[in-house]
């Protein structure tokens, strides 16, 4: 039997009277890449925030291996170090250089040695092509560069699970690719990831499994090939159609 890194069981999340996530259950194996897709407002981002205990939950539980991840729970700080998260809006710390952004948590939260952390940070920055930006401030970087730094910052804490919350949604099209490439690279090295995205072709390329969320439910769960070519549910079909454009051919050729 495969080893489950993450177990989400019966997760229910409400904002007031609005139930955002209804009794969600799924498991993630070590090394697996899960892509969560669905229409806006379906609860994708909330799901990631609940997994990282940034939101209190009203029912069910989130387990990392055998530890309960719960706001206010014990070991939460250690558990969060095992769950990295990258946000849509990068959220680098604007008062710190790129290098200090990356080394802050390893040095202050994990009490690791400065020299060791900096060496690792520089190696990771080199891998994402940003070694020369180590001493820059976030405001001096482009969106794509900031997002790559944010990924490196999350990686440097050595998380076992990485959560990506629409990390390319705020980027210009030509910058999307550089960020997606970094993520494809991570998948290739066997990182366990849960990715919320609207990039359908990327989802298809990177996913081991697709979760389709709608109205706070997992409506469909399938390997990417099957999901994208032959979705089983009507709702998934309709959702995927919104990404297709019927061509307007047979226009008279302009001289």
């Amino acid at each position: 039997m495969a080893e489950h890194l993450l177990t989400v069981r019966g997760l229910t999340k409400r904002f007031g009277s609005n139930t955002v996530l209804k009794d969600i259950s799924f498991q993630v194996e070590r090394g697996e890449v899960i892509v969560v897709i669905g229409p806006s407002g379906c609860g994708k981002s909330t799901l990631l925030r609940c997994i990282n205990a940034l939101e209190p939950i009203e029912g069910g539980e989130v387990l990392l291996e055998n530890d309960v991840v719960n706001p206010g729970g014990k070991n939460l700080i250690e558990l969060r170090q095992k769950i990295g998260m990258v946000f849509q809006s990068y959220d680098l710390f604007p008062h710190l250089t790129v290098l200090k952004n990356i080394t802050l948590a390893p040095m202050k939260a994990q009490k690791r040695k400065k020299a060791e952390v900096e060496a690792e940070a520089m190696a990771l920055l080199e891998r994402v092509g940003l070694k020369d930006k180590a001493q820059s401030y976030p405001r001096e970087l482009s969106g794509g560069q900031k997002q790559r730094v944010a990924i490196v910052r999350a990686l440097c804490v050595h998380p076992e699970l990485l959560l990506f919350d629409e990390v390319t949604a705020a980027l210009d099209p030509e910058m999307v690719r550089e960020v997606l490439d970094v993520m494809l690279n991570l998948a290739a090295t066997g990182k366990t990831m849960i990715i919320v995205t609207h990039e359908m072709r990327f989802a298809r390329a990177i996913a081991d499994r697709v979760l389709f969320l709608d109205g706070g439910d997992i409506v469909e769960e399938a390997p990417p090939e099957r999901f994208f070519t032959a979705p089983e549910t009507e709702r998934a079909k309709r959702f995927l159609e919104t990404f297709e454009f019927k061509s307007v051919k047979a226009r008279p050729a302009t001289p």
Partner: protein
Amino acid sequence: MDLNTEVLTQYLPLYQKAAVLTVKIGYFGIVLAIVIGLFCALIQYHKIPVLRRIIAVYIEISRNTPLLIQLFFIYYALPKIGISTNAESCGVAGLAFLGGSYMAEVFRSGLEAIPPIQKESAYSLGLSPLKTMFHVILPQAVSISVPGFVANVIFLLKETSVFSAISLMDLMFTAKDLIGLHYNTIEALFLLVVFYLIILLPVSVLGSLLERRVRHAGFGS
């Protein structure tokens, strides 16, 4: 305008002594005000029950009563309930009482200007709430607060001029005293203005430098 230079040189040592007192009380009062302000701002930012209500009441009282009245209260009323004070510690306490609320509001608005996601991204990196506050939120909040903070420091230093009312021998007291004694009004007031400028202009210049520095240190993420 004829300034009698003889009178000026004669008065100068008195003003110097008074200026030292003004700066001393201003310094201790403002340092205390910063401590009180930071404490109050953090309580309000974290919405700590009960304490935040008490602090809200303090801020309203402190901001909506004149410093002169606050000083009278500390100087004349407190000894009646057995708390004895001398004029100098009264001055420091009065300035801290008034300045605390002004500083609290400046720091609180700085804290609230930091988007919550900064906190969340620090948490998700495994930083504790305390370390997040110390390394991520406070440095940014303080930078945002700098312009208001500098304005407060200048305002509080100027407010020290009411200390003469509790017979502290500060600059204002000295000037009034000398005018009463010798009627050299022009010389006395001239020196008063000069000495306030000597104290406040460097603060103002340092303040602008500080503002430029923190702005340079990375905003507009």
